[in-house]
């Protein structure tokens, strides 16, 4: 437990000292995770909405596959993306390996199934409620899906936050496709992994505490915004 006390002191010291190196790492973590969350949302929400509103052959199989993909081990995804982006691989000419872009790609692929699967559930529940009325109004499948997406926006926000949480916390994928290059692809989680492997456990734990704090603050902010918006518009 002395390690924990020492880590808390270290964490406070790092934050108060406005350590530029640390801030760079935090900024990169947020940039990568927010970007991948946004991309995953752009990809996942329409898929979730389409699956919720339309019935077609094979829908059950796709839903089951999406649910299963939520449990994709990040390190496996990292390996797959690495093989794709490596110069020896099909997309090597893009030169994305060992750049933040590769990290965003890997994380997007990890989170998109989560966003799609969870949003599908949210929208499907709403569709049950709205279906008769929207059909009566002749809204059509496309417009209905968009309407549902907008009307369930608060629940969908929770889904997006879940995706973000997964992104900012994972280390297995980004360390493989990013290479943990100092100043280029080193993020909070990979730094924690590095400091742990160097045996500097108090520092690693301190960074971990800072990461948790950031995520908690972000979630508080999102919750507050949601409640404020909800009070305004019901």
């Amino acid at each position, binding site marked *: 437990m002395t390690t924990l006390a020492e880590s808390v002191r270290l964490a406070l010291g790092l934050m108060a000292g406005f350590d530029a190196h640390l801030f760079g790492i935090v900024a990169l973590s947020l940039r990568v995770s927010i970007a991948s969350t946004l991309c995953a949302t752009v990809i996942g929400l329409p898929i979730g909405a389409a699956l919720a509103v339309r019935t077609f052959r094979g829908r059950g199989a796709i839903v089951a596959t999406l649910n299963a993909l939520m449990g994709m081990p990040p390190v496996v995804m990292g390996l797959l993306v690495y093989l794709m982006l490596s110069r020896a691989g099909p997309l090597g000419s893009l030169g994305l390996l060992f750049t933040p872009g590769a990290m965003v790609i890997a994380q997007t692929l990890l989170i998109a199934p989560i966003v799609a699967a969870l949003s599908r559930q949210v929208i499907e529940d709403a569709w049950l*409620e*709205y279906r*008769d*009325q929207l*059909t*009566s*109004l*002749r*809204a*059509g499948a496309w*417009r209905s899906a968009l*309407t549902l997406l*907008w*009307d369930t*926006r608060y629940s969908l926000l929770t889904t997006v936050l879940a995706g973000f949480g997964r992104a900012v916390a994972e280390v297995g994928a980004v360390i493989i496709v990013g290479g943990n290059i100092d100043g280029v692809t080193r993020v909070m989680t990979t730094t924690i992994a590095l400091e742990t492997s160097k045996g500097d456990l108090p520092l690693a734990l301190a960074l971990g505490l800072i990461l948790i704090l950031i995520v908690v603050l972000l979630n508080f902010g999102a919750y507050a915004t949601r409640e404020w918006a909800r009070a*305004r*518009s*019901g």
Partner: protein
Amino acid sequence: MRRANGHVRARADATGPRGLPISLDGVGVRRGAATLLRGVDLVVAARTRTLVIGPNGSGKSTLMRVLHGLVAPTEGRIDWGGLAAPPRGQAMVFQRPILLRRSAARNIDYALRIAELPRAERLRRIDGALAATGLAAIAAQSARTLSGGEQQRLAIARAWALAPEVLFLDEPTASLDPAASRAIEALVRDIHAGGTTIVMSTHNLAQARRLGERIVFLHEGRMTECTDAAEFFRAPRSPEAAAFLEGERL
């Protein structure tokens, strides 16, 4: 759901509005092992005010949905003024009002945009519908924060703004208090006075007495009566209807 195919030109009744009369011929609805409706022969004529009554589980909701085209019959035939699919110009209000998470005015605007009306016309109709339903004061308020009675009036306002040929109402006052229910009934009368055909289901006999011109009585999925309201309440022909009027649970 039967999609409206507005381009189908069938030989409809030249003198009446499109989509009317609605004719059901031996219509039945089976879902799995359950029979929700069977052998319904019914004609809904233009500008009538028909009330569908019967005990719980008798198939009222199912019949309403078949008439509006939300549910396809598994037996029998249905046509809307000769058309195989229900045309535009029909609206429905459900027992619990389904409103979008936006202001009252925007809810009505949503329906009108689907109907592809130009902006000026939409604004005009929104104002008119809100005024007619006494909701002008809450036009900008979020629909979900309105009271139950206000929400249902808004649902009717939305339907009204569409100027439908037929308005279906599925037990619209079931969850409302008497004052709110009366307000809804007054609106239904107004809409009917404007030339819209009304088909409404209710489990409230007093309401049926107040509003009905024609009564359709359902019992366990079968239509046992379809007659003029005054006659029905004076002397129902079927024993089930008689028992229902006596207040016995069937």
